[in-house]
């Protein structure tokens, strides 16, 4: 059981490179994580030895690909406490949430109904509900947050009535880094007959996720923030909900039998997986989960928690820096007085420090927090104290340029 942060760093070859002649301080894992050698090797192995299609051929390459692909689905199910037939493989969180909106949403949300999203949401867990409500004549209600970036549970409870069909919430905010009380929200929603959709894009890489304990009905996440390739994602859904849902996209792979005038669809999860999937990406996601299972995840969580507290406190102590909200984990978004976040990110990049700038696909949240944009530093298990020191040092350069 690896529990040495320095050893984790060595598992990620991207960290071996210099950037602008400096040691790379990669503080943008909330955008996309770096990939461990185990994942890179798994993807190379697919294209080298398992390059057949899945669930189609009977030849050796197809058999090998199918076996690895199905094993990845099993690993994903184990990782979040679900069953393999509840794991729909998608291209990412966005596709997973759109699947819920287009399939469950169109079948279950009608005129006069309501959908609730929190004020924290990433565009991917907001815009699909806007579109669904506009199409179905339903109302979108926004659950407010306080200045620390915490969901106001009492206010949320006040928004829930028997017209509400669905509540959408991100488990870990990609901007303010707050952790939502998903179990409490699920209890409130279920009492009113609504379902709960969780955007787990950030949470999946930082929290121990157990969909049963969360009590949610759908849980969506992306592989690429969990050390796996881009173009992979997961929608976990309760089996009974998935079984009753119509197909969204149709074509090959998702049908049981086809005649010229009709098709009989397969059972979930295949009903929602039309077309040839991202085979190498999914196998890479299985390898990423295998990597996480091979290390001491509790130690990784302690390491990240210690670094996060340091990062948050160091930024809060910097002159002219304002931290957005009161982050619990993984990310710290901030602004620097008299310097725009894009300029901040460009200047620290020259010092080898990679951070994100902009509104991080959460424009309404930035307006709620009184900022047009922010800079954001985010962590993964491969970060260390030197990364934080590099960022803090580079911020001095920002203040020097923008006096």
């Amino acid at each position: 059981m690896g529990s040495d942060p320095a050893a984790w760093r060595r598992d990620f070859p991207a960290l071996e490179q210099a950037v602008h002649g400096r040691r790379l301080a990669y503080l943008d894992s909330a955008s996309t994580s770096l990939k461990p050698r185990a994942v890179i090797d798994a993807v190379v192995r697919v294209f080298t030895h398992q390059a057949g299609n899945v669930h189609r051929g009977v030849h050796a390459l197809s058999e090998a690909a199918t076996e690895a692909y199905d094993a990845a689905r099993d690993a994903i199910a184990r990782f979040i406490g679900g069953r393999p037939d509840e794991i729909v493989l998608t291209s990412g969180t966005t596709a997973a949430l759109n699947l819920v909106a287009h399939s469950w949403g169109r079948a279950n949300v009608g005129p006069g109904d309501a959908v609730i999203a929190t004020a924290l949401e990433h565009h991917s867990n907001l815009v699909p509900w806007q579109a669904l409500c506009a199409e179905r004549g339903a109302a979108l209600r926004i659950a407010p947050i306080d200045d620390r970036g915490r969901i106001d549970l009492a206010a949320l409870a006040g928004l829930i009535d028997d017209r509400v069909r669905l509540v959408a919430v991100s488990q870990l905010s990609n901007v303010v880094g707050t952790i939502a009380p998903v179990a409490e929200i699920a209890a409130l929603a279920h009492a009113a007959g609504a379902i709960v959709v969780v955007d787990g894009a950030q949470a999946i890489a930082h929290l121990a996720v157990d969909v049963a304990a969360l009590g949610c009905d759908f849980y969506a996440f992306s592989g690429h923030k969990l050390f796996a390739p881009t173009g992979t994602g997961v929608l976990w859904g309760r089996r009974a909900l998935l079984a009753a849902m119509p197909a969204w996209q149709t074509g090959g792979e998702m049908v049981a039998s086809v005649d010229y005038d009709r098709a009989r669809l397969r059972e979930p999860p295949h009903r929602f997986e039309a077309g040839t999937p991202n085979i190498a990406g999914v196998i890479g996601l299985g390898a990423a989960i295998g990597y996480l299972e091979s290390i001491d995840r509790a130690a990784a969580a302690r390491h990240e928690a210690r670094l996060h507290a340091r990062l948050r406190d160091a930024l809060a102590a910097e002159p002219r820096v304002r931290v957005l909200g009161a982050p619990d984990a993984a990310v710290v978004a901030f602004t620097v007085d008299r310097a725009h976040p894009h300029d901040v990110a460009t200047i620290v990049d020259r010092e080898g420090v990679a951070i994100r700038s902009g509104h991080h696909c959460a424009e309404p949240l930035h307006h709620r927090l009184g900022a047009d944009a922010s800079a954001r530093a985010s962590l993964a298990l491969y970060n260390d104290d030197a990364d934080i020191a590099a960022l803090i040092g580079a911020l001095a350069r920002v203040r020097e340029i923008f006096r």
Partner: protein
Amino acid sequence: MTEPTRDPPDDRDELYQATIVDHDRAPRNAGALAEPTHQATLDNPLCGDVVTVHARVVDGAIRDIACDARGCALSRAAASIMSTMVRDRTAEAARRLAAAFEQFVQAAPEAEYADELGELRAFAGVRRFRSRRVCATLGFRALLRALEAAT
């Protein structure tokens, strides 16, 4: 054992030239015109920068101009410098300057450039930052859009 070397110091490559920082802090011709003959707003959805240009064009010449630029230092400074350079030029001359600046920004980092760009030459460094080129050109693009259509 040698320390990693920094990029060789070259003032021309420094992105945040004193000129740019100065125009960002105190943009010239900032705000709006009471009676513009032409105006346009452009944004960059990638980063959220927004530039609004007001112009008063009389007999084919830009007699007055105002810019409201919200966003990063590059977009604010570029709009400010643009406003100082196109005032009292013909719309045609302003279009030529816009084209020259666009070409300058998109060129290879080591490419030569002409003196006619004046203070805009401070943006030479942006040629090394592909993702930031659009910041530098947003103001001129807004001006071109404004000149296309009367209010």
